[in-house]
């Protein structure tokens, strides 16, 4: 079978067997929820409540600051016991609202249910922004920004990201199997906002059950399901657009530059909840998995639940943890502690033990060119990394270092185990710092 995909990339062992067959389970509320107002790309929200306040589930606790920003809501009802810096998944202590749940889990009274057919596109966008909807794949880019293309940009295709190309993660897979109605409803709302008909759900063929179910359910709605070859990083926007439509996003451009908007399937389900039930984004599905966990599971967690609490629901640790990753193993963030709260972008929690981690010292580049052949952006990772080591900022920039999506394919494939993506990331920071200075 000749399946669609993009050029480049690779296929690491996907290790999804740990949790692919586990239905989504609701995680009980922990003793305290730590909700940081910085949970999305863009300006952090501004805390608008005080210590001692009673809050209800879905109440705004921090307001959006600027266009690329969204408000943050309480994930359960209870009392605000502290507003103080707590360890954030970014690795440093950042301000956070600490809520002690009262156990009633009561929704805010002012939340209103809407019928999407009665509202126009602008009203829908406002609701989505007010509900704090961000990209649920992990990048947490505010959804309303993507849905507001500047004038003159014509959008003709909506692509739904059901790829879940990161190994281990199965949250989107389970969502597609169990929540296809909400996803399809969300897609219809998005189609109305963008005023277009073409919608394609891209799913990799390692999820045949999800492809089958969605193909059946989508048929009456005119939504196309596109099976894709299993290839990492197909879940990255630009690669998914290439795989589904054959279009290329220009250098430094956005998907809207080639007439496409991409949203995650989880985001669609959240959008459906927001409009139909009036519920803001206060919970998400996260995969708790890895060889260091006794019972891997897919958990429906309240935002602000600590990683430790999620772990406790999954039978605890199996051995001494050596690496804790929030997100997928390729692009996820290594965590300092299990006390860190899960935030809107937490698609998974991975625990590895020392014996699961291959660690080799790196050697010299042997010029095999494998990093060049796997790079999905068609850069020359080894060249840019060499410039990065020598701190040659302009040369790195001329080799298009800024186009790197930091997928990690080059480091994964390198037989000399060179820290290629790490070097490129580092020099990208220097390039941006230099640009700011000039």
């Amino acid at each position, binding site marked *: 079978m000749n399946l669609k995909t993009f050029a480049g990339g690779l296929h690491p062992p996907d290790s999804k067997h740990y949790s692919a067959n586990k239905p989504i389970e609701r995680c009980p509320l922990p003793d305290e929820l730590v909700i940081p107002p910085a949970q999305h790309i863009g300006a952090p929200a501004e805390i608008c409540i005080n210590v001692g306040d009673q809050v209800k589930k879905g109440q705004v606790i921090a307001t959006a600051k600027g266009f690329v920003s969204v408000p943050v809501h309480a994930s359960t009802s209870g009392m605000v016991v502290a507003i103080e810096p707590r360890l954030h998944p*970014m*690795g*440093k202590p950042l301000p956070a609202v600490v809520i002690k749940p009262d156990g009633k889990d009561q929704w805010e009274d002012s939340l209103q249910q809407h019928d999407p057919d009665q509202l126009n596109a602008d009203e829908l966008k406002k609701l989505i922004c007010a509900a704090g909807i961000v990209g649920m794949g992990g990048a947490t880019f505010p959804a309303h920004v993507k849905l507001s293309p500047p004038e003159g940009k014509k959008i003709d295709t909506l692509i739904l990201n059901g790829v879940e190309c990161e190994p281990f993660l199965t949250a989107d897979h389970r969502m597609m199997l169990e929540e296809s109605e909400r996803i399809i409803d969300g897609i219809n709302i998005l189609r109305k906002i963008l005023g277009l008909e073409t919608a394609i759900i891209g799913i990799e063929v390692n999820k045949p059950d999800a492809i089958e179910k969605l193909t059946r359910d989508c048929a009456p709605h005119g939504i196309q399901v596109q099976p894709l070859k299993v290839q990492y990083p197909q879940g990255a926007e630009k690669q998914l657009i290439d795989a589904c439509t054959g279009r290329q996003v220009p250098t430094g451009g956005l998907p809207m530059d080639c007439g496409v908007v991409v949203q995650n399937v989880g985001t669609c389900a959240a959008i459906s909840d927001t409009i139909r039930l009036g519920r803001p984004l206060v919970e998400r599905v996260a995969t708790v998995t890895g060889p260091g966990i006794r019972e891997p599971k897919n958990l429906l967690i309240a935002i602000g639940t600590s990683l430790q609490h999620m772990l406790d629901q999954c039978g605890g640790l199996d051995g001494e943890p050596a690496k804790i990753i929030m997100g997928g193993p390729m692009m996820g963030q*290594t965590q*300092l502690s299990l006390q860190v709260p899960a935030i809107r972008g937490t698609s998974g929690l991975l625990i590895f033990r020392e014996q699961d981690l291959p*660690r080799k010292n790196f050697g010299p580049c042997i010029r095999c060119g494998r990093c060049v052949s796997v790079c999905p952006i068609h850069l020359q990772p080894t060249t840019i990394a060499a410039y990065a080591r020598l701190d040659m900022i302009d040369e790195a920039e001329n080799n298009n270092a800024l186009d790197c999506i930091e997928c990690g394919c080059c480091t994964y494939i390198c037989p000399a185990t060179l*820290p290629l993506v*790490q*070097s490129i*990331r*580092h020099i990208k*920071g*220097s390039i941006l710092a230099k640009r700011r200075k000039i």
Partner: protein
Amino acid sequence: MFAAILSLGGIGLVAATALGVAAKKFAVEIDPRELAILEVLPGANCGACGYPGCSGYAKGVAEGKALPTACSPGGAEVIEAIASVLGIEAVTFEPQVAVVACQGDNQKAKVKYRYLGLTDCNAAQKLADGPKTCPSGCLGLGTCERTCPFDAIEMTSENLAVINRDKCTGCEKCVAVCPRQVIRMTPRKVTTHVLCNSHDKGALIRGYCQIGCIGCHICNKTVPGAFVIENFLAHTNYEKLDELEDIELAVTKCPTKCIRDFSSGYPAGSSFVPTRNDAA
């Protein structure tokens, strides 16, 4: 034969005249002082003066744009030489030397996480503010060592940067690359320094470093006026220090031993030895 000599000689004559005329007509006027200054400069092209290399600096001084004291690697000698070229009074110049204000190596300072990334302090600092619990101590990945044009910095086996006071010329390149601003410029003649850079309170510091300044004021009580304590961190009072005696007393009294007199030795693990100038 005769024709050949005549024609070649003729070509030579014409070319020589043309060159001679061109040299006179298009002569680039160079300030003789510029050349004289360039002669006395160390020629390291380190850039410490802020000019691209020694010739750039010489030009700057000759044009009156650059200060004659800006060449720190050259020290007082060069400044005097420049002053004599310019025909001005030599300016008093305090030679400077860089000091790493930290002794928290892998043995003494707590590690926040095991860092496996690039061997570069700036890269490590971006990952959760660096792999050490201390927010301002030396990260020990050797970015300053690789930057130093004078080979004056070494990393100890326990990952602490130490600067050789003999080789350091005060060019400040290491100060510019350090992501934690742990390297300070200090007057050359002062050998006693508080080697800590953390403004955290004592209790906090004790939690992550055995050899950090806890701001206890004991040094200043022992030798009044020799130290300045700001925000729980002491530093030597550079203006007053040479007037004071018994400064060693403060070194021995310091409860965490974070004050070091470089004339009696470099931090643990360093291969450097005190110089004749520094040695007491």
